[in-house]
């Protein structure tokens, strides 16, 4: 079955992220002047405004910052509801949005802020592998 959900179109400066995703690697932009990792990918470092940016392979690990359970969704996601969305604090710093895996959307109180999560990639098509995060044992 083909991947039913919206697939991003890569921008003019985000190719390394999607190339990494195809290899199962989480690539993050890092500023070579202030060493800070940021997400989403910028044209300038959002901390020090340097344009001296590089892509580094991240650990692919993080923790849940906050979450919600979507009971009303639209488009292809509508029939997936309820599903859990979450913002992930990356081990390297900054934050990513995801649809969270390995949790029960009908038991939202059992999901723990701060729980450990690991990234995995799902092939939407030959070019685009979408990152999702899954709760793992502490």
């Amino acid at each position, binding site marked *: 079955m083909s991947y039913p959900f919206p697939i991003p179109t890569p*921008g*003019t400066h985000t190719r390394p992220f999607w190339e990494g995703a195809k290899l199962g690697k989480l690539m993050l932009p890092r500023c070579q002047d202030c060493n800070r990792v940021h997400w989403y990918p910028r044209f300038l470092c959002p901390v020090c405004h340097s344009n001296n940016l590089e892509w580094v392979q991240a650990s692919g690990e993080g923790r849940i910052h906050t979450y919600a359970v979507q009971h009303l969704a639209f488009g292809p996601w509508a029939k997936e509801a309820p599903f859990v969305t979450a913002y992930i604090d990356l081990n390297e710093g900054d934050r990513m949005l995801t649809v969270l895996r390995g949790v029960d959307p009908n038991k939202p109180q059992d999901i723990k802020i701060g729980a450990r999560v690991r990234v995995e990639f799902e092939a939407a098509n030959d070019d685009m592998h979408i990152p999702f995060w899954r709760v793992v044992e502490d």
Partner: protein
Amino acid sequence: MAGQLSMAAAIVGAAEANEIGFLEEPVTALQLHIEAIRNLSIQTGVPIAKIEGVFSTGWSSELCEHLGIKPKYIDTTAVGGCSFEMHVHHAMAAIHAGIIDIALVSHGENGHSARKIGGGGAGNYGRGGGVASPAQEMTMAYGLGSAPSNYAHAMVRHMHRFGTTTEDFAHIAKVTRDWATLNPRAAMYSKKKHPFGGPITVEQVETSRLIAWPLTILHCCMVADHGGAVLVASPKVAAGLNTKPVWIAGAGESMGHSNMLEMDDFTATSAGISSTAAYTMAGLGPDDMEMAQLYDSFTITAAITAEMLGLAPRGEGHLLWKNGHAAPGGRLPINTNGGGLSFNHSGMYGMPLLIEAYRQLSGTAEDGINGDKGKQTSARTCVVNGTGGSLSTTATLVLVADD
């Protein structure tokens, strides 16, 4: 008055994107903006972080987010090619008024590249399609769409950090409905007016249909029809009118992020910044406020906003409602029209906030609009706070009644 503005500000630098023209490698409009801004910073020696006001044709909040700027003045006037001259004019006025000292006017438009890749960027109103902004690119895969799908994350974080509960926030919906039952113009005034109108209980809020846990539908504003307008005039003009003036004692604005991905603290909005500016301008503080009109797209929006405005300590905004202070007869009436939750909310609720604040402070709440009277309070001061986007942008006004 025009003379006052003369020579009140100067243009101190001008730069362009790295490459312009018919570019072989397509670029996005956002990229053109950012390159030009960086080059302007290098040229003038003014760090990007020192920019206080951002003026552009619809791009300002995305530019601020991309650059990590927390502005004190945002202008997105977009009326065609002359917009940028207007931006300079507006910037001069803002500088003359003492609100900001450094203003950025920015332009980025990929007229050629757009034929290959589309506009690129959320701020590119009117062009649409093609490459998304990088923030959209990295969030569009995950099924978020409506406002509640985003705001629910803030309530969960608030509950985690402060130990608040869904029941705490349900009191906000209940009390706001109590106000609506005193206002015949409110959509939820009565069962007769709307099948789901009339008084509600905290338990009903808790058990109504889930939209985005923990938000049930009664934690969410309605989507209805509304039109409104207010007139702003100089003191001289105001003195000659039959209507009572309500004085704008203070005003402030800011933004925290454009995409919720960039919200540092999910329990705080830029209303802390915008209200500080407004209070400072007014020479008044939260303790001087006798009423509040707070954008209540969701119960959590109202609670966080009350905290940001200093009306309650962090984590305790909901207590204003739960303890009855915000309710009819309480010491700090809030959302006396019934709010976006129960009066009306058409998508952008900023105008009803202004209308209700004016009616209360001018003592005309009971005069009626289209024959329908409201509930008059005795408040002489009011803080008004609008919130836009996904807890993204805020603007605060401190209004006072005429003596």
